[in-house]
């Protein structure tokens, strides 16, 4: 059922409004991943906006952070105090960015060119993709066709493997810091899109290796 459900909802290249973006529908290159993270004005993907987006390519197990994409978006409204508490990006910090603040469409254009047909990786990546699609769908007429992997899900499955032959444990701590700690990865400081993306990429690499070993 889930498969058919998914298939029905799959984006179709014929709905694409701008043929310049046909590259999104090229077959996915195995082993080509883009890990990304957004900081947003809030937690509702229908109404909240992206403030900053960081994306890193992972190729053959190497995190190419030197060619990372970092985007800062212009905000039509002031950022709400509640969200500033989470990501600590103040309104004035936006002005301090070196590069120009981009319009939503410019930012997404850069992002789409960056990801090409890569598999998208993130922590609760559905939320970040929804933020992106809020902009992309009205503009290009399609949702993102890229395959996606959520590290929280990968991590849950990794933990679940231990239970097959043991007592079922109902809860796994899926908080970002808990996953880092459990996998013994260094916490480089959270809630900064770039660091979040980098650490997510590390979690992803490690989970992949752990998966390999079991095969």
């Amino acid at each position: 059922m889930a498969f058919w459900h998914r298939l029905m909802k799959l984006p179709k290249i014929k709905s694409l409004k701008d043929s310049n973006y046909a590259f999104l529908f090229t077959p996915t290159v195995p082993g080509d991943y883009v890990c990304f993270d957004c900081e947003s004005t809030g937690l509702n993907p229908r109404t909240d906006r992206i403030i900053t987006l960081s994306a890193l390519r992972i190729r053959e197990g190497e995190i190419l952070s030197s060619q990372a994409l970092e985007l800062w978006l212009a905000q039509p409204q002031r950022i709400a105090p509640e969200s500033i508490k989470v990501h600590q990006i103040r309104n004035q910090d936006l002005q301090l960015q070196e590069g120009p603040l981009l319009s939503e469409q410019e930012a997404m254009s850069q992002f789409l060119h960056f990801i090409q047909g890569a598999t998208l990786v993130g922590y609760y990546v559905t939320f970040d993709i929804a933020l992106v699609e809020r902009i992309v769908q009205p503009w290009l007429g399609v949702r993102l066709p890229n395959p996606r992997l959520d590290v929280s899900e990968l991590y849950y499955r990794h933990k679940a493997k231990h239970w097959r032959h043991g007592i079922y444990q109902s809860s796994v701590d899926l908080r970002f810091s808990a996953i880092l700690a459990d996998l013994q990865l260094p916490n480089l400081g959270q809630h900064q899109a770039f660091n979040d993306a980098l650490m997510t990429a590390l979690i992803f690499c490690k989970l992949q290796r752990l998966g390999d070993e079991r095969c």
Partner: protein
Amino acid sequence: MGMEQQAFLLENIAPFDRLPLTQRRKIAANFDVLYLTPAERFVPKAPALFLVVKGLIQESQNAEVVARYSEGSYFNEASLLKNTARLAGHYSVVEESILYRIDAAVFQQTLEAFPQFHAYFYASVVQKLEALYLSRQQLAAAEIMMEPVYSTPLLGLVTVEAEASVAKAAQQMVAHKTDACLVVLPLEHPARPQNSHAILTSTDILRFTAQRQSTPVSADTTPALTLANWPLYTVSDEEYLFNALLKMTRYQIDRLVVRSSQPSRSGDYLGFLHLKDLMAVFAHQSTLVWLNIEQAHSVDELVERSAQLDKLVATLHAKGIKVHYIAKLVSELHQKLLRRLVGLLLPEDLQNHVALLLLGSEGRAEQLLRTDQDNALIYADGLNAQQQQALIEFSDAFSQAMLRLGFPTCPGGVMLNQSQWRQSHQAWYRQLRVWLEQPTEAGFLHLAIFADAQVLFGDADLLQSLQSLIWQRLEENPLFLRHFAKGAMQFTTPVGFFGGLVTRASAKGAVIDLKKGAIFPIVHGVRVLALEHQIPHTNTHRRIKALMDIGIFSEEQGVELGESLNYLHALRLDAQLRGATQAEPLGESDLAVADLTHLQQDILKQALEVVKQFKQWLQLHFKLRDLL
């Protein structure tokens, strides 16, 4: 860019720490991140420098482990500097690792743009060592220990003529708010010409005043010179305060006359440095407790005071003070402690008839932490049976007390409570002739121990005549020294043909034995040379200095040897201090390579290279190839 934290990481890694923040940021912005799992062979895809964020990477050449890189160290620079991939080692992942990769182009650009950064990779071992000490010292920048004498307030200089009365001298002292003055020695004075001045202190005047009760004399008529003392103990105004303290401790005095080090005023006296001012500067140091060893009236009190010694060593070491200086201070304090102990235990009527010797590292004043007791006793010929019995009792009590002070008994039995190491002068004479004339392994060992003897207490002449015997016999029989020198070759120095470390596997991972492979060859080689050239010093650094003075060592060779020895001792002390805090200490002289930072490994390799060269030099000097 988002690599802020990463740029901060570089701040703590030499030589990146000498780059400006903007350049560190630039480098960090070019990091790629690699995640590696154990047992994997790691082959860099393109020339790059790798920085270990977490984990452990091992480099090997020809199946020989040459280095290990842990958190905060970097590797693969050799292939970048020489610009040839052939030099790249074989890397394997020992522990799961996260690396940052710095692109070769960025590294090259940094090398070209920043001369200091460039210099680091092309510096000699002495330069690197200086930089290391400097960085440690910078950590303790607030620490006064290593400040020069001129940084403390001096008491004003007052000089009076030879004819001046005590009263006049006292008035001058009060007027200049000082408590000592110099008295010019008249030309015909017997202490001339070695001494130009004598010193008169408030203590002298106090004593004089107290004495006046019985023999009334007037301060107005008594010449100051009659109360004054000489020689003067002086210190250069550029000397470390630390060494000034050493000098005061050594001569048991409260004041040093400070002399100028400026060429134009060379030798001019500037003022007095008073112990109490120095102490105020050292106020937070545990050194204070140590200076009143003299006031201890029982073994218990001495035990109490000795307990703080190891802590003192750890503190000084952490502050980056050269191990050579720490060893000097510690030896000084040990000797004070032991001298007081002898004073407490040895019956007074015997005190002038014995010489108590410190041997081994304690005799060389190179002991840092308390190790085995190595000591011996020479007593004058012709002591009666009762006196000899008293000496036996003293020896047992002394060894017991030393045990309580934290000096373990010597497993080889080199202690004065063993009859072989407690003999009359005559018996020692015969003993030495046996060692010198019938060479055996044990004899070599014993002679090596005895050659480092230093008189702790008693009659120094007793030792001196024995020392002359050794020198004389060695002169007559040069072949003995050549065989003796062979000892320096008996352990291989753990450095490979390509300059890598040769490690031995142990439960703690790869380790090397610093004592056998590196420290011993230097100490023994220098000892044999000192015997050959009849140098009376026992301290290896002083022996090296003396050998430089007579031209046996070139300036460069001597400095390099001394600095390398210092560094090896420092590493060993590091390992010992670490061992003392861990539940499972390493073998006494084993050093775990993984505990060393990249810079430390780098310098260690060069220091070992110095040892290797010294061994080759010894081989030539003593023509050892013909013997082997």
